[in-house]
């Protein structure tokens, strides 16, 4: 991974935000905890939530980019089509959020995919399954933290696409079952997951080399 030109370039990007933004950015990174910042200043709430989403989308985009750069053994044409579409969606989500955040965007995150075997279909699709379901639950749980209705609408437009991804990945993993309908993730009331940032970030943390040093620049 370290030799990958795209990911290496990501690593050297310099943090250029203002001091105030560092507080918010720090708040969404795994070793910190978003809730304190949100509770301390609701005015920063939407920026914090968007940066939180931006962090997750960066993670997903980097993951699928790597998946397509080093396809696992035996990737079928259909699988490649699906994974390519998902990659492009995640990149579009990432770029959308980055643009919406403008100068308040957190820096490019450095990822850690050391535990993923990109040559293994099971490892790749299993990770995709984790990321997509985590994304769905993260957006569902973050909706209530969003103040601006336009941002809520944007998050809504993204979360259902993440749910569509989750179904497609589930079908690849467990075709011919109820998995694609959400079995295993949808509860007895027909409800999908909804997790707080505090619950989501520890699950994402193993895949992100927390750029703590960048935060202190």
């Amino acid at each position, binding site marked *: 991974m370290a030799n990958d030109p795209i990911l290496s370039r990501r690593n050297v990007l310099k943090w250029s*935000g203002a001091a105030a933004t560092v507080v918010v950015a720090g708040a969404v990174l795994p070793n910190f905890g978003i809730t304190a910042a949100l509770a301390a*200043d609701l005015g920063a709430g939407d920026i914090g939530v968007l940066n939180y989403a931006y962090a997750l989308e960066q993670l997903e985009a980097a993951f699928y980019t790597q998946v397509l750069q080093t396809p696992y053994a035996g990737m079928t044409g259909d699988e490649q089509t699906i994974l390519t579409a998902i990659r492009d969606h995640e990149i579009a989500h990432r770029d959308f959020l980055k643009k919406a955040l403008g100068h308040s965007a957190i820096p490019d995150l450095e990822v850690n995919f050391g535990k993923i075997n990109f040559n293994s279909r099971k490892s790749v699709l299993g990770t995709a399954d984790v990321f997509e379901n985590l994304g769905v639950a993260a957006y*569902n749980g973050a909706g*209530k933290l969003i103040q601006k209705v336009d941002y809520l609408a944007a998050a*809504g*437009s993204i979360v259902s696409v993440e749910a569509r991804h989750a*179904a*497609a990945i589930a079908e690849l993993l467990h075709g011919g079952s109820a998995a694609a309908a959400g079995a295993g993730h949808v509860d007895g009331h*027909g409800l999908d997951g909804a997790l707080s940032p505090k619950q989501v970030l520890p699950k994402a943390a193993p895949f992100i080399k927390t750029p703590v040093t960048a935060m202190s620049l």
Partner: protein
Amino acid sequence: MSNSENFILDTIEPEVADSIVSSRRDAFAKYGKLALIGSAPIVLAMASKEAFAAGGLPQQVVDVLNFALTLEYLEAAFYKKGNGTKGLIPARYRALFKTIGAHETAHVALLKGALGAAAVAAPAVDFTAGGKYADAFSNFQTFATLSATFEDLGVAAYKGQAGNLAGIPVLTTALQIHSVEARHASAVRPLIGKAGWDDAFDKPKTKNEVLAAATPFLA
């Protein structure tokens, strides 16, 4: 506005800062009252029983939930009939549709429970849409086409109503239903030769757009 809030907003684009400030003001003006009524409960049934027990649900919320309930009735009835029709669904997809049907039935129960006496009755349905889909329950492709249509419609409908629930606890529940409908849509669309999605961003539909699309199936 606090000093620290000003400081944060100073770091972003001026027009974005302005719109954040003004939209927050609008949101409080519009939803402030609702936000005061409901706070912690996430589960819809709890929201109705605890947060809204004193005066019932605000009319705006009743309208949204009844709108959602109408769509859920439609979906639940559709899958009940489809899952109960022998020979319609190929063995490979029976577990899928059985689960989708169970979710829709659960959504009906959840929304009815939240609305209580304010819940609308189940509409009379015509899944052939006046004969246009005469083989809805004898041709799996037609059944799956209607299923995908209803699911995509449900996704767009919930998405279109999210703004009307902003600031109140039922928003989370609505979002939790919304993403389940999206899973369903993505699971069914490939059965009629479509990708699970149209694009990177799903588009919302207004209430009128949704009702126009659903009306042919309401008898």
